[in-house]
């Protein structure tokens, strides 16, 4: 199957074309678009004055104010800009759980590709980063429609194998990113929960709009095992032979506690959070995602 078909199911593409993703906050852009920019530039809509400081371009000095009030102020205008969206896709070993071509990584890649398409359709810029404990693949920010193929190719070439370390990865990303934008994280957040939560906070503190898409497999949410099973860790050497029925209740309780902690952390950091299961249809997830962003933007 071609990579574009694999990660862009037709029904998702169709829906993406009808949707419009709007940034909730003012983002920094370099193209004029429907998104307001935090930068003051050459626009027609005046916003405010500010005190002149040495180094400011004297062309922006409002001479009329100087004439009337004898003080130097700079005239500032609001400027519309495009969306800069970075898709952060977790390609650690734990994302490899699931049937072939239906793993969590496959599902996350599908969602990411759909979002990329959606953003590109809006003439906005999108980048993608695949990571585990290192950044494994980085596709730069572009607005070209052909840029989607690069993103999908990076997903196709990914080989989830290593542990996750979100904290250090996100620090690197923040340091290497010169502008703020929308950071969409696709991850199962397993393995190092504390590190993941710190990483999300790091992204948010850098001024980015952060959206966390928490991808979990149905098995991880339902734990449907019944026969005696030897569980072997995907990201660790831990193993456990047990009767799954006996541990199911405790497992679900521990999972639930973890989900609550993640949700609270995201809420505290003013990050968007969405828990999705691999059996959910990607177009439905996209629809839900955009609808919820519309709702929060209007609010």
């Amino acid at each position, binding site marked *: 199957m071609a990579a574009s078909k694999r990660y862009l199911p037709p029904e998702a593409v169709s829906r993406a074309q009808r949707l419009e993703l709007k940034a909730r906050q003012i983002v920094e852009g370099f193209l004029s678009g429907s998104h307001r920019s935090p930068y003051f530039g050459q626009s027609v809509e005046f916003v405010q004055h500010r005190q002149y400081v040495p180094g400011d371009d004297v062309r922006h000095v409002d001479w009329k104010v100087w004439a009337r009030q004898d003080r130097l102020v700079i005239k500032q205008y609001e400027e519309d800009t495009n969306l800069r969206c970075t898709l952060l896709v977790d390609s650690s070993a734990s994302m*490899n759980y699931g049937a072939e071509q239906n793993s969590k990584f496959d599902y996350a890649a599908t969602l990411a590709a759909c979002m990329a398409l959606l953003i590109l359709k809006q003439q906005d810029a999108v980048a993608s980063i695949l990571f585990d404990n290192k950044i494994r693949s980085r596709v730069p920010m572009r607005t070209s429609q052909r840029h989607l193929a690069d993103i999908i190719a990076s997903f196709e070439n990914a080989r989830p194998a290593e542990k996750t370390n979100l904290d250090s990865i996100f620090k690197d990303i923040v340091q290497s990113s010169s502008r703020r934008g929308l950071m969409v994280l696709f991850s199962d957040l397993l393995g190092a929960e504390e590190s993941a939560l710190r990483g999300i906070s790091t992204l948010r503190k850098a001024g980015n709009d952060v959206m966390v898409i928490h991808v979990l497999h149905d098995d991880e*949410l339902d734990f449907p095992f019944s026969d005696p099973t030897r569980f072997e860790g995907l*990201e660790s050497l831990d193993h456990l032979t047990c009767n799954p029925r006996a541990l199911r*209740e*405790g497992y679900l309780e521990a999972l639930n506690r973890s989900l609550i902690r993640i949700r609270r952390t995201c809420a505290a950091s003013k990050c968007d959070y969405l828990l999705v299961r691999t059996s959910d249809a990607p177009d439905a997830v996209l629809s839900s995602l955009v609808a919820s962003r519309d709702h929060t933007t209007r609010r």
Partner: protein
Amino acid sequence: MQFLFQPLTWGFLLVGVPILIHLINMLRHRRQRWAAMDFLLESYRRNRRWVLLKQWLLLFARMLAMALLVTMLAKWVSAAKWLGWFGGQSTHHYILLDDSYSMGDTEGGEIAYDRALQAVSGLLRSIAGTPGQHYFTFLRWSRASLVSQSSAENAPLDAAADMIAVSIPQDPARLLDRVRVTSPTPLSLSPGAAIELVSPLIADSSDEQSIVYLVTDLRRNEFGDPQTLRNNLLNLTKNSGLEIQLIDCGKDSSGNLTLASVEPEKEIWAAGVPLMVRFQVRNHSAQVLRNLVVKLKAITYADGSVSPQIDRDYSGDILELPPIVIEQIAPGETVTRQTQVVFGVPGRHVVEVALPDDSVNTDNKRWCVIDIKPAQSVLVVDGELDQSNAFYFETVTNPDARLRTGLVLENADAVFLRDASARELAKYNVIVLLDVPRLEPTAIAKLEEYCRAGGGIFITTGPNTNTDFVNDQLYREGQGIFPLQIQAVDDLISVSGIGQPHVIATEHPILAPLKQLSSSPFSLINIRKILSVEPASLERPGLQIVATGISNRPILVDHPMGDGRVLTLLTGLRSEWSNWAQDPTFVVLILRSLGYLSSFRHATTSDTVGTSIEVVETDSTILPEAEIILPAKLESNRIRLLQNVDLSDPQVARLNWRLDLAEMDRDSIEGFFRPGLFEVWLVDGRAKQFVHNFAHNVAAVEGNLERVPLNELVQSLQPVPIQIRSADALRNSGLNAQNASHSTVVMALLIMLLLAEQILAYSASFHPHTPVTQRHRSSVLGSGGMR
């Protein structure tokens, strides 16, 4: 711990099956690569102890369930008292069946024993139909009696009982088959032995309800000793929960005649000598019986001319004797009659006496065995030098060549007694001491030994009698062969009265026939001198006076010594002492005295049924295999058994055939108890067969069919709580056994355990829950999710 079905106890190995399944499950687990190990390990850490505990409890419950299942199927029969607290007490039914020969009573056209069997059958069927666990022990009184006699201490119940603690199935047909093959025995029995035999088992089974059933016809001879029976029953009822039921299967009898005894007179048992055989008939009915015909047979077993014949009633030659008619027998009366038989040849001959059939036939026939010798040897020691005393004896015992008395006299002097060995003396049936003045101490000792061994001694006194010697050596303070202490020689000429007989016979059997005569036959006897005796010595134990004289002085005295007897004539045979030797009654006196004295060495003429048979032969050339022919069952041939002869002693060959319940088959045991003639055939070194006959007769007392009234019995057994039931009522109705079995308790425990196991398994999440993942599903898309 005991189980009725022991082979099923192998099923306890199934206890290991749950462990095996657990181990197999541990090995056959599947592998699963898993991302959310942290949550799984956290769950494991939090629940590990509880999960392990549940798993162990579950494993233990399953193992216990298997054990209980096997316990239930294998029928656990022994339990502790705690089972009773759960209502699981079982009931043990002890049926003690009277199989004495009175149970063969055919009153009312039905045998009492059959009524008893039908009652037992009804009882078993009703018990089988009653819920609960029931055990059955079946013991016949005869077996209990025999085992008790064979080993008085700790008689084993399992050797006697037909069935012990057998579980009663729903269909007790097979048990009843084993009960129905039994039949009344010819024994006279009482319930004591059976009760004593089951007592230890009842005492050891205090955890179960015990019911003792005495199935009997309630004859007075069996329950005539209520004191002993009451004590036995009281001992039984010490155990709590014991119930005694008396099942009456008898009916009032219209009457029964019993042949009480058949025995030869104590006379001279010699070939060709007429012998009187006496028999007694007892009327146990309540009416006078008239013109009763008694049939007699004389069966001759001539040495060397008879061979074993199993297809005939007897191997010997049968001679029908003229029947004897008893004109009348009053109720409860015992009539004695006698008949004369003559066996012309030596041998162990038999006399059979038979009564006509009545309600109980077992006691209508009797037999006696008479060991006829060619002659009886008599040793005569005369104190007179001219042997004048011996002359009278010679005249009496050998009056004419044509007349045969069966006595052979040998004369000897006192020195012979001193020198003869005990074996030589033993050849003589009687030793006669005729006015012997003195004997050597050695001779006295040999005579005493001879007498103690069963020999007879006849002593006459006279002018040679030395009073001091007699008192010191022969009387010896009542320890010697002389019966009395002599005071003096009394001269009776001056004291004899006119017309007063000098000899008066007592009831002693020697002169009894003469006493029955209308006029005294002793009127011509004149006793001139007699030894007067110390009156105190007349109190000697066992001493009997055969004849007295003037002033009631003892003339002829009989006293026992060991197994033998001594007859002492306290007067002389010579004319200056008396003229009795010239009187015709002297012939009767001598012949009967010698016959009487010789009889104590005879073998018994009959035994009670069930007596062991013992043959001792001093011939070392006897072949090691003997043949025993048992009395015939009705309308069938006699049974022939082979028996080994014990030849370990080179001097003596022994054959001992005794009851061995463990070794003997059923036919042999039945034959052992059968009344009749047992022929033991031996073969000597010259290949000559010879026979030892043994007559076994039933106990006459059992023929008394009088029943104990129920109210009298209950009264006499107070305070024993006894319940009396009728056999007829039990045929179609039963008892209500109410207790549940151990198996029922075990099953209840098993069910409870399985329920607990299910709850435990459910609790341990071994059964899947209803899926509860909806909350996660709704949190994904339903709630909008963001922030």
